[in-house]
């Protein structure tokens, strides 16, 4: 390897080692520690793993979290795509730049504040129910439900998914799209057979980001979902709150990491499959 290339790569290697691999290794080791009198003691015991993996509520939380993050990913991908498509193909470059700028603006404010603002909109006496009430519908319960959780997840992820999808679609060679149309492809067929395959990598990466952020999010399921039932991040908080069982919380965290590694690896394999093969 070129000596300069190594030098340039060194900062990211050191960064990842110090702030990702190191803490990850410590977390795995900590999952074997024991807690006595609210204080962690170094040990190598499987008690925490045995306890957490045999608790039904842990697995309930696991499948619920997986399902909710998956639902949010599906909804975000489907809702974002028409917007991204319009930004990529139907507007001028200047409008696209402004739209992306506007999509970035939500990240200037605290996610917690944005989440709390949904109280005003989703509450029984909130904006939506007030509007529905004027035409004789409702009120519907939206806060403290899985629906509320998904709304919170989308608040966090949707702008990012739109941006990533827009970038992926905007980089498609327009000549290929035109060629498909000139050869008699209908617009839906062009979309499915040309546009989506060409943007596949970006679309999958966008979905992956959505899943990762939703899977690890504590705020939406707690404040908009009412912790009912709790997701894995809430379970981690619950576990640390009672008896300071950080090692047991580490078990849950490792479960989450392994799940995310597996899903990310699968997604990346799907995204780059043909490129690697070629």
């Amino acid at each position: 390897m070129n000596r300069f290339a190594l030098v340039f790569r060194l900062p990211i290697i050191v960064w990842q080692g110090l702030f990702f691999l190191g803490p990850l290794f410590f977390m795995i080791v900590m999952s074997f520690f024991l807690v006595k009198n609210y204080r962690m003691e170094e040990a190598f015991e499987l008690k925490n793993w045995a306890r957490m993996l045999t608790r039904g509520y842990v697995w309930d939380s696991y499948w619920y979290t997986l399902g909710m993050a998956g639902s949010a990913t599906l909804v975000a991908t489907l809702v974002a795509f028409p917007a991204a498509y319009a930004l990529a193909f139907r507007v001028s470059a200047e409008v696209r730049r402004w739209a992306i700028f506007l999509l970035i603006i939500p990240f200037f404010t605290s996610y917690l504040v944005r989440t709390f603002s949904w109280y005003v909109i989703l509450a029984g006496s909130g904006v939506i129910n007030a509007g529905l009430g004027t035409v004789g519908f409702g009120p519907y319960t939206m806060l403290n439900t899985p629906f509320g959780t998904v709304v919170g997840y989308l608040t966090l992820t949707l702008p990012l998914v739109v941006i990533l999808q827009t970038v992926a679609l905007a980089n498609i060679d327009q000549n290929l799209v035109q060629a498909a149309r000139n050869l008699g492809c209908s617009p839906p067929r062009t979309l499915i057979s040309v546009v989506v395959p060409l943007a596949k990598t970006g679309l999958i990466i966008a979905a992956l980001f959505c899943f990762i952020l939703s899977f690890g999010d504590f705020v939406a399921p707690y404040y908009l979902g009412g912790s009912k039932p709790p997701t894995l991040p809430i379970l981690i908080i619950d576990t640390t709150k009672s008896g300071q069982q950080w090692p047991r919380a580490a078990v849950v965290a490792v479960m989450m990491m392994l799940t995310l590694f597996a899903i990310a690896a699968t997604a990346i394999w799907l995204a780059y499959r043909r490129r690697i093969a070629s």
Partner: protein
Amino acid sequence: MSERSNLTRRSVLAMTGATALCAPFVRPARAAATEINMLAWYGHGEPDIVGAFEEANNVKFKPKYYAGGDNMLALIAQSPPGTYDVILSDTEFVQLLNAAGYIEPLDANDYPFDDMLHDDFTKFPGHWDGDTLFSMMVRFGHLGVSYNTTAISAEEAMSYKCFWKPEVKGKVGHFDWHLPSLGMMSLYNGNGAGLWDLDDAAWQAVQETTMSLRPQVGGFFDYGGTFNSLKNGEMLAMCGIGDWITGVLEKDGAPVASVIPEEGGIQWTESYCIGKDSSKADIVRSFIQYMLSPEGQVKSAQMAAYPGNCITRGGRAALVAADIAEAQRTNQVDGNPMDPIALIRDGRIHYRNIPVNQTLEDWNDFWSEYKNA
């Protein structure tokens, strides 16, 4: 031609640099305030409580806030001795603090034990080890049925049974901490003074009662979530809290209230301790004395974050004189049948404790199962 300003980018940078370099040599008008590290629930280190004491004693509180006794113990356990000068503890955790050697003994002669509103307060459980005082009670409050007055009547609220009322299905919230909610279920089961001392059968019965409430439950909330869901009417009844939350909302005009039902209520009690090896024990002792003075007791009763009841006669008298509306709202008026002290004397209030026959982990495990049910 426009007149150009002399203020160039270079001159601004030079002035900024010069100011920064000179800053260390500028003598402050007053000696630097002594920093007191406080470990407490949110609100206790805020200006409405400590501001006047800071001003009078040239000290500055540096609060570290926790949520729950477990969290407090862990923060202390993970810090070197002497990190915290003053520790506010829930009473049931004082004995654990003492057993672990995290707090200094106090001199009982320093505090107004002859002015207590109730005899129990002079020898509060867990605060003494033999004849040695380790923690000084400073305020208390009661937990019972907290409810929206438009959905539940005052009569209905006199029993925990109102949580099962069909009209509030999906609108009953829980403060997300197992201890007060399960304590209330234990009271509803008729365990009375033995609410924490449950044998296997009684513990099983408490779990069954709690599980039967699950279809009514609309969510599990922290302080902010509890506050918001009661305020916007998302939750019409709340299990595990009391006036410490509804009091703030009530003063803001929300149609909410808290009462102690016939089955009994639970008392939370907050006490100050001096941290082990604190180098500022003298000023902390003065601060605890200040919080027990009539002025300190009034500030505590009016605390912006969450109100608490006075524990001294002097404090109550000062509250009545300074803020009769708050004294009446919280029934802290002599002769009132709902006077918190009268409720304790009548045996309707039980001091919050930790489970006697189960571990906190057992209770938490069940709480997690309950939330997932």
